[in-house]
């Protein structure tokens, strides 16, 4: 009977045990399953890594990896700065841009926070000086973000070049302000913020989690987030729909500077010191986290939740390899391999949806 029904509707697929559905509908379902797997790939990577390290840990020294609270908090603390950079980077990459200056904006903010808190502590007292330092550091970090935004939106400089220039400027200014060295902070409240815990969770992890949640809300639920996706997919369409592209891009790069500023402030809190090179190795990690998290460097796709998974994939690889006593250089190789696999999955998914489209 099933076969008859199919011939009648002109469907050419072989009968599949009584499963009758309209062809278009069927194709859409199959496609979304593949898409869903591709969208979740960062979380699948993360699960695989955790299972792998857990097995290794149990087999070689009989202890647990992931059920050890010390390991979990260490990984979380480890992920704070790259995740904050990657959060800002996600917004930028979705529009088809990139912000190469974030690493040194983070260093600049760390140095500024250290100086300002040292300067303000005698006059304001410890907690107020820290708050003041946070505001100034994040405010200062938004200046190079603002300049990036002007370069990209008004002066039509490609993001890669504009933010590369700002990479150099922020780097130089950060080192000049730091006097070429690290700037220690004398403020025990600041140290407590950077290393203290509540219910066993480090403060800086809580601050980061709240901030990232707010960013997730902005990207997924607000007009700003929606326009971010639209600009990444089709800038001309967004402009014709009445979206002010220039204003949006300006806000976007300020936002990304702000993320780097918060990362720099929390870095200074954790080490009770500001260092110009604080974010130097993290910039490419942040881009990697965004890509592993499912964003395309061509723009138009990406989510904060994906980026969170991507950042944790990198953090788990880095921490886990140290934990199982593998030479640290394997970290680079592993992260590199994960990036490549991730992009291959993205390409495969594109081929599939491209094929469907031309049908």
């Amino acid at each position, binding site marked *: 009977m099933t076969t008859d029904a199919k011939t009648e509707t002109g469907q050419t697929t072989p009968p599949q045990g009584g499963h009758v559905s309209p062809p278009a509908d069927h194709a859409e379902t199959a496609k979304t399953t593949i898409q869903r797997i591709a969208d979740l790939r960062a979380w699948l990577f993360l699960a695989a890594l955790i299972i792998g390290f857990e097995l290794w840990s149990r087999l070689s020294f009989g202890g647990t990896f992931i059920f050890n609270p010390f390991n979990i908090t260490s990984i979380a603390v480890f992920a704070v700065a790259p995740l904050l950079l990657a959060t800002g980077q996600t917004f930028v990459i979705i529009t088809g841009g990139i912000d190469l200056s974030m690493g040194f904006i983070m260093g600049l903010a760390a140095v500024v926070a250290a100086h300002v808190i040292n300067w303000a502590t005698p006059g304001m007292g410890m907690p107020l000086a820290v708050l003041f330092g946070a505001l100034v550091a994040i405010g200062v970090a938004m200046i190079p973000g603002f300049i990036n935004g002007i370069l990209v939106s008004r002066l039509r400089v490609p993001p890669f070049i504009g933010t590369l220039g700002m990479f150099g400027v922020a780097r130089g200014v950060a080192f000049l302000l730091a006097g070429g060295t690290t700037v220690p902070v004398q403020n025990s409240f600041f140290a407590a913020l950077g290393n203290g815990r509540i219910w066993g969770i480090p403060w800086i992890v809580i601050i980061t989690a709240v901030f990232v949640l707010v960013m997730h809300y902005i990207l997924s639920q607000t007009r700003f987030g*929606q326009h971010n996706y639209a600009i990444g997919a089709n800038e001309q369409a967004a402009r014709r729909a009445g979206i002010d592209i220039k204003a949006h891009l300006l806000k976007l790069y300020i936002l990304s500077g702000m993320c780097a500023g918060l990362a720099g402030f929390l870095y200074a809190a954790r080490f009770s010191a500001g260092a110009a090179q604080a974010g130097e190795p993290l910039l490419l990690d942040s881009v990697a986290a965004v890509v592993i998290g499912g964003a395309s460097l061509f723009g138009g796709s990406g989510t904060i939740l994906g980026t969170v998974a991507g950042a944790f994939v990198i953090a788990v690889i880095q921490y886990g390899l140290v934990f199982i006593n593998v030479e640290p250089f394997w970290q680079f190789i592993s992260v590199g391999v994960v990036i490549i696999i991730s992009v291959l999955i993205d390409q495969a998914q594109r081929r599939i949806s491209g094929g469907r489209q031309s049908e």
Partner: protein
Amino acid sequence: MSEATPLLEVRNLSKSFGAVQALCDLSMQVAAGEVVALAGDNGAGKTTLIKAISGVYRPSSGKVLLEGEEMNFSSPQEARERGIETIYQDLALADNLSIGANIFLGREPMTKRWGFLPVMDRKKMADAARETMALLDFHVNRLDAPVSNFSGGQRQAVAIGRAVYWNARILIMDEPTAALGVPEQRKVISLIHQLKAQGRGVIFISHNLQDIFAVSDRIVVLRRGVMAGERRIAETTHDEVVKLMVGG
């Protein structure tokens, strides 16, 4: 065509760019429920004309009247607010967004979650998408899918749907069938018939005479920025239109 006030009237419109006169003293009208085809060779001034109507260009002289009222648009947004919507050849859709999100692009409706948190009203967008697309006789089952999943004709319908949802009274369509396969072209032609039946005015640019004859009531032929001729479709032939276009 001298009955009631036409929906859209272009009166003695001229537009020059420096020394180049792109459009010279052109007048035309579009009535409600009428489809007017705009034909002419490349550089004849079709694009200049629709851009002057839709607020992209300010005319050098002459007027654009909407229901007898003189319009002075300084941007396409203003024209759109008054109900003149242009559907571009390259569609102007954000491929990664759903139909609803595209309909509402730039004017997303907001609602409050838990009574305080402003969020985009996705349900309203999806409902509007379903209703609007049904109005165009186009039924989708997955309203959350990005429009890149749909075919060229379906995407054209989304672009038209956006104009319809925002109550466009005049739709200007620049080569709406150019990038489509034959069955998809048919679909777009039937969409234009629907718009006509709903009492909207349509200005339709095409190089395809077959399409023009299939859907238009009237044809306006431009040549080098001036009106080369205006004919009722019922009273003309392919040959005559071609002659008007090339000049002879």
